[in-house]
């Protein structure tokens, strides 16, 4: 698979702070890649280096095969970018903005108006297209910034917190749009909204303190550590029963909450054994379910903000 983003030993230092530390990242053409990290982890700095806005202290970035700092213009010709912080020119309207950005992509005039109408329709700004941007709400600006990112029919989309500040409906619509676009082009999304990443991305990179901790598919990440969480709803649970289950070799952790027994086991083959022990001890099982880790659990575990177990 072809690499659309490749960073090699990408490092950015600000005086004594190492914002990004030897980042080696590869995003492929079929990826909708989520870039996760707590505030100050180095996500935005990484994206700014990818877009050639900030220069790295060391290392390099290749986008669609072009070195961003040598062939930045060629690379940017094929990228759509939504920054986390941005503003428009207050005196211009949506059409004037898109027309200006389209002109910078050297899109012929005759193609521009059709493309602009399509995009404004897509993001739901057609009715306000001739209003000055200074009269737009935050949500409308966020939709316009997505429209400008698509003006050049990009081969790669880089989105830095694309749903920040949107209301639930706007946020949902944006996610649907990202999902739809993700079927056509690779997308790199930086976000701190884990459910958003879990919903739209197929691969995730987790960064903390400037260091890339892990890159994997969401499926693999949620099976992190190889342990399986089992949740058993059981009647007639007592201390003896709990101790009997705890005594099974391969049960790593066990906790009881009312009628619910939560166990962490080394492999799924242990589940029938647990069921047998519970039945033997007089417990009546109502349901058994295998619970996978949420991305949030994985994220918190990797970034060290939640203790194991």
């Amino acid at each position: 698979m072809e690499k659309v983003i490749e960073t090699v030993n990408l490092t950015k230092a600000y005086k004594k702070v190492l914002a990004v530390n030897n980042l080696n990242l590869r995003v492929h053409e079929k990826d909708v890649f989520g870039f996760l990290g707590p505030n100050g982890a180095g996500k935005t700095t990484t994206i700014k280096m990818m877009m050639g806005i900030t220069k790295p202290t060391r290392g390099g970035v290749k986008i669609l095969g072009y070195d961003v700092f040598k062939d930045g213009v060629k690379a940017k010709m094929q990228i759509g970018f939504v920054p986390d912080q941005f503003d428009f020119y207050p005196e211009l309207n949506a059409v004037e903005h898109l027309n200006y950005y389209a002109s910078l992509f050297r899109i012929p005039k005759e193609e521009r108006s059709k493309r602009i109408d399509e995009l404004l329709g897509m993001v739901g700004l057609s009715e306000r297209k001739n209003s000055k941007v200074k009269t737009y709400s935050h949500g409308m600006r966020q939709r316009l910034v997505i429209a400008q990112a698509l003006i050049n029919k990009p081969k790669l989309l880089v989105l830095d917190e694309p749903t920040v500040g949107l209301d639930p409906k706007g946020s949902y619509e944006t996610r649907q749009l990202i999902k739809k676009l993700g079927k056509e082009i690779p997308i790199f999304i930086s976000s701190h909204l884990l459910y958003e990443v879990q919903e739209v991305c197929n691969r995730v990179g987790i960064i903390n303190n400037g260091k890339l901790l892990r890159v994997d598919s969401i499926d693999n990440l949620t099976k992190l550590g190889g342990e399986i969480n089992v949740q058993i709803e059981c009647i007639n649970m007592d201390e003896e029963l709990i101790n009997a289950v705890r005594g099974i070799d391969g049960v790593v952790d066990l906790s009881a909450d009312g009628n619910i027994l939560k166990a962490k086991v080394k492999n799924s083959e242990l589940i029938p054994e647990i069921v047998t022990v519970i039945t033997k001890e007089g417990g009546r099982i109502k349901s058994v379910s295998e619970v996978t880790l949420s991305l949030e659990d994985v994220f918190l575990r990797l970034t060290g903000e939640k203790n194991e177990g």
Partner: protein
Amino acid sequence: MRDELTGICNIAKKEFYMNFKTKRLLVIGIILGVVFISASTYGGILIGGNPDEPLYKQGPNTVLGMVLSITSIFPAILAIALSYDSIVGERVKKSIYLLLSKPVSRNEIFCGKFLGAFSSIAVVYVAVLSIGYICIIGVSGVLPSAGDVLKACGALGLILLCIACWAALAMFFSTLFKTTTSCLIVSIVMWLFIIPIISQIGVVYYAVTTNALTSYGFKNTDFPWYAKMLYAINPDNCMSAYSNILGGVGQTMRVLSTKESLTGMVLFFIVVFILGLYIFGKTDLD
């Protein structure tokens, strides 16, 4: 190269359009227009109707020279007002991130922004000067010769060059500072104090050490090279060479010849513009 020129032109077009949409250019342009046209009309009345009047014989360029002298503060005001926030303003508002994500180099952005600011001021100045000149001719009834019109165009050229110098300086500061206020203050302080003071040091030193200054002015106008060089670092000093072109009206002290003034402004512009380009190219815009 062709793509770069297209990029510069597209950015310049948008800047030009924005300048005419915002009130800044409109307000200063109207004030300039009112002062310039009023002074031109009054000057036209003064020289008109009396063929024996010495000013009448010198023609409309004499009045134009006086009007340009009265309005000599405007080139710098307009240039600084329209250029000081061209880079730093986008940086503060964060609109620069959208611009930098487009396939244009920083050089194109800098050149385009400069061209946009300069062309909008130039349009205002050319319009105001043309209307003023027509007023002088219309009110006085004195027709200029073809040579006079050419000289007026030459004077306009010098003023435009002066505008380019101040605009380049304001843009240079715009790449250096992180807030619009600090950029505006530094640009104004440089224009009103630092550059004028430095530019006079050579002349003052010459006057003090050689007793060349009398109560009637300088004994001779052959200033030493160091005085000329320092004097030429102020584009406003160089701009006053329009007086040489228009017949010596409105100039109290002639330190530089027209050619020297022109050279001074061109060098000032090139150095400051290239410095601005260099710094903008190297700055980390985070």
